[in-house]
């Protein structure tokens, strides 16, 4: 079963795809991956973490400091991220086939 992901959740899962991270590291990685288009505050970050822990997309693992808990992708999380990436990839492929990038003036991808 795949869970619908919000934009923040998608980027958080993406940041955890390579390795386990603590909250501040996740925040910085999301900022970098999204080219500063997604800036998470602590409220949004931990709200998303809470929902993803409940949906079992991520799990908490023991860390070196109680203020820096580490989070890790679960198998369900990996599947959700993979389906979401596949969905984006399909959409991009479709847009390419229809030459939408050029027609809509999305220069960054057109050339």
């Amino acid at each position, binding site marked *: 079963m795949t869970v619908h992901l919000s934009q923040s959740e998608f980027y958080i899962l993406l940041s955890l795809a390579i390795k386990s991270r603590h909250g501040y590291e996740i925040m910085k990685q999301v900022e970098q991956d999204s080219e500063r288009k997604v800036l998470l*505050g602590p409220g949004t970050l931990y709200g998303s973490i809470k929902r993803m822990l409940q949906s079992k997309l991520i799990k908490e693992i023991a860390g070196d400091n109680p203020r820096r808990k580490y989070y890790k992708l679960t198998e369900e999380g990996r599947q959700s991220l993979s389906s979401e990436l596949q969905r984006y990839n399909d959409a991009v492929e479709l847009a390419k086939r229809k030459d939408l990038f050029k027609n809509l003036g999305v220069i960054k991808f057109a050339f």
Partner: protein
Amino acid sequence: MNKAVIRQSVRIYDFLLKFYPKSYRQKFGEEMKYVFSESLKDAYIKNGEQGIFTLWTRTIIDAGKSLVTQHLENQKGGAHMKTKNADIIMQNKIFIWIALATGLILLIPLIAMQLSSEWDWKLGDFVVIGALLFGMGSMFVLTARKIRKKSHRVVIGITFAIAILYLWAELAVGIFTNWGS
């Protein structure tokens, strides 16, 4: 001064965390405080006081939104589902309105500073007045929730408004104290 602003900012954020549902605060409060204090240091290293100001603006909006979300999720997760409450004071989205109103009021001195050299607000002034407005607004809501009679709420509201004006004037020019000096 700058270290004092950072320390004060963490203290204010710690206070803000008290408005989250208890279970959420117990689970994530310390981590959130850690993330905020690291973000503060980072913002100061990169952009000085301007960085801290930008971070606070984002944090107030972020906290306003997540406070409402967490209280709503907390209510949904409770044993008894409640019917929709028409009383805005009882709805948690009022905290978003308080945060927005605080932000809008703070825009006045910010814009005035661009237009006149007579307005010389420092970052600390924005933080203190922002905390005063958001804190007093939230305290009014929490107090008014315990009072059902509308006329009593109006009296409480006027009292809080006078308290805000008095504290603001006291901090600005000092009426009975030298807090503003």
